[in-house]
């Protein structure tokens, strides 16, 4: 149930359009319970076969949902990525030092906006990767539960298929993320001087949607990997190793402190 709760929390904190695109973990769990508790069901019986079919049918629907959403978002990201690059280029070419109308104020203003947009864009992409992962994890857990409770052998072959689904193959997005990071490095001014942790905390948590979601996602991952799951076993992930977990802890995003613009 831990995962279920965490999933719910992520869904709440997620970007609004995404809320209904996640795995219906609870419903599927209920179904598993239903199937496993039916006394007359024994493996090999016709009814069990049908119950399994239904279960698989639902899972497939979920997967289709993920795929559709994921690819839609991916397409958007591909477009926006290119647009951002072009935008940076335009700003540099127009108001940059070597541009057609060099103007430091304009340049700075535009760059500030671009920075914000790029960081948000980066965040959204990472959240999509997270979306993919959370749903995959949920599926894996549900399958494990199913196998465990019904003695079925659904998990292994099914998960192999899931691994090849578009929503799980996040390579392109990851690539875009990395490219975005290098663009950001280019666009951000060189970091001058140290800032105390306090200061940073005070000004942090600017963006409600993306940032909160990101932090929630990291926290979920931490918890998930800490173990304690009922299906922890040979196919489970090892504990998480987040180098700066206290950094994450410091972002208690319950009451965001908006930066006044």
């Amino acid at each position: 149930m831990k995962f279920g709760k965490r999933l719910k929390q992520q869904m709440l904190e997620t970007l609004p359009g995404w809320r209904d695109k996640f795995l219906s973990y609870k419903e599927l769990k209920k179904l598993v319970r239903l199937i496993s508790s039916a006394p007359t069901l024994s493996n090999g019986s016709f009814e069990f076969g049908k119950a399994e079919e239904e279960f698989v049918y639902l899972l497939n629907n979920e997967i289709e949902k993920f795929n559709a959403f994921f690819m839609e978002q991916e397409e958007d990201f591909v477009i926006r990525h290119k647009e951002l690059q072009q935008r940076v280029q335009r700003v540099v070419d127009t108001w940059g030092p070597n541009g057609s109308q060099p103007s430091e104020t304009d340049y700075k203003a535009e760059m500030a906006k671009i920075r914000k947009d790029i960081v948000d864009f980066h965040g959204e992409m990472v959240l999509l990767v997270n979306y993919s992962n959370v749903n995959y994890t949920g599926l894996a857990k549900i399958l494990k539960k199913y196998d465990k409770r019904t003695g079925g052998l659904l998990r292994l072959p099914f998960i192999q298929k899931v691994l090849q689904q578009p929503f799980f193959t996040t390579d392109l997005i990851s690539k875009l993320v990395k490219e975005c990071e290098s663009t950001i490095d280019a666009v951000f001014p060189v970091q001058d001087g140290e800032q105390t942790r306090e200061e940073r905390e005070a000004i942090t948590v600017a963006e409600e949607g993306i940032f909160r979601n990101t932090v929630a996602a990291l926290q979920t991952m931490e918890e998930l990997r800490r173990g304690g799951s009922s299906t922890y076993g040979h196919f489970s992930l090892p504990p998480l190793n987040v180098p700066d977990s206290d950094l994450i802890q410091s972002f208690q995003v319950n009451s965001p402190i908006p930066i006044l613009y």
Partner: protein
Amino acid sequence: MEARPALSIQRSGTKQLSNMGMSGSLSSSLPILPGPLEESYPKLPDSQHVSMERELVTRPLTHASRLPSASGVVGHMFSSSPGFSTDLHYSSLSPVERHSRNSPFISHASTNGACLPLTHTTHSGSLPSTASHHYAKENSASWHTDSLPSFLDFPVNTAIENSQVESSSCNAVLGSEEFNKWADQLISDDDPLASDWNELLGDTNVTDLEPKMAYQVSKPSPNFQANQSQVHLQLPAPSGEIRAIATPSSSSNSGPAKPRMRWTPELHEAFVEAVNQLGGSERATPKGVLKLMKVEGLTIYHVKSHLQKYRTARYRPESSEGSSEKKLTQIEEMSSFDLKTSSEITEALRMQMEVQKRLHEQLEIQRNLQLRIEEQGRCLQMMFEKQCKSGIDRLNATASTLENPPAPSSDAVPDSPAKSELEASQVDPYKTGSDPVNANTGLEESSQELGGKQKAPEGKAPQSFGPDACESSSQSLKRPRTDE
């Protein structure tokens, strides 16, 4: 007995299926065919894959003829198909792929008419798993609407135009003569029901789509017939290729009316170029862009929706970068908040970046781990099967001496060595004790199953497996083995 809502729904759903299927089969026995074929598309349209598909195709056909009593048959067929079978090749096909390829087929069915889509969808819905449309339980009408939207998003009519546009290019893609044969079969049976399907589509499409598109729906079948063979041929490869992300240039391919196109940066580049050539995003038309791009498998619908997104993406930033007046006010605002604020903002953004980067890192790591875990699981599974096969042969000789009681415990052994091997290579130190127990119960139950289930033979894979598995904790569990 307690009412099992899930199952009862299932039963009613099954009836539905039978009805649908029957109506489908009444009109033609073939409609069933496309479904499974559709679903058995491998990722790459190799001819060897094609031959596998043909095998699978014949199965449903025999079932089709027995549809009235289908529920049992169907159930069996379904449960045996979606990857539960020992046919590894087939199991590598994703049910989702099948599912999603239904739509390309459905839209194709529009070109072929027939209640093909109906039975097809039935199959698509059921073949992956269950006969019941759990979500569309009420009536067939709602079922239609449920299944329709899935491909209405990708209006079928575009397939029509698409098929004409692409027929020539698509032939190149396939070129397998087996497809030709299959396509011919399909074509011959489709005509009678063409109007049905178009009507159906026409209704829903008109409401959802622009008049221009709707018009295309009502195009008469003659158009389709000319292109049908090509259209059919077009089906398998593109929808296969769309999933094969690896292929760079052809990564843009997609099923004719399954507009779940996976846009890559390269494809987008080509798109942007085409748009620019046509005078910009406002001026460019989907048709023009499609023509310019010359990408196989790309439908006008894909282009249209992509163009829409493109325009939206451009419009917003441009309007904010805006005119000089806007710019001035923004600059004034900026300067009134002194630099401290802006650096604070920058800092905040940096923080955000930190967290985001961290999350991304972790996600990548997690994903790799997940992949590895499953990879291992798969390898072990294959090992089991290999061992089982040799074990079975050996045991057949001593079959008379084998009794049931020892079976469950011996069943446990193959599983736990596998698990302990996994253990050895993974970090988690736990559940060493409890897993064999789980394995036992799991295997006991599963050993009672026949057919399709992979583990059944496992119990017969005795000594040969033992030495192979990692020696660590399997020693104690080998005990029951000895009497065999």
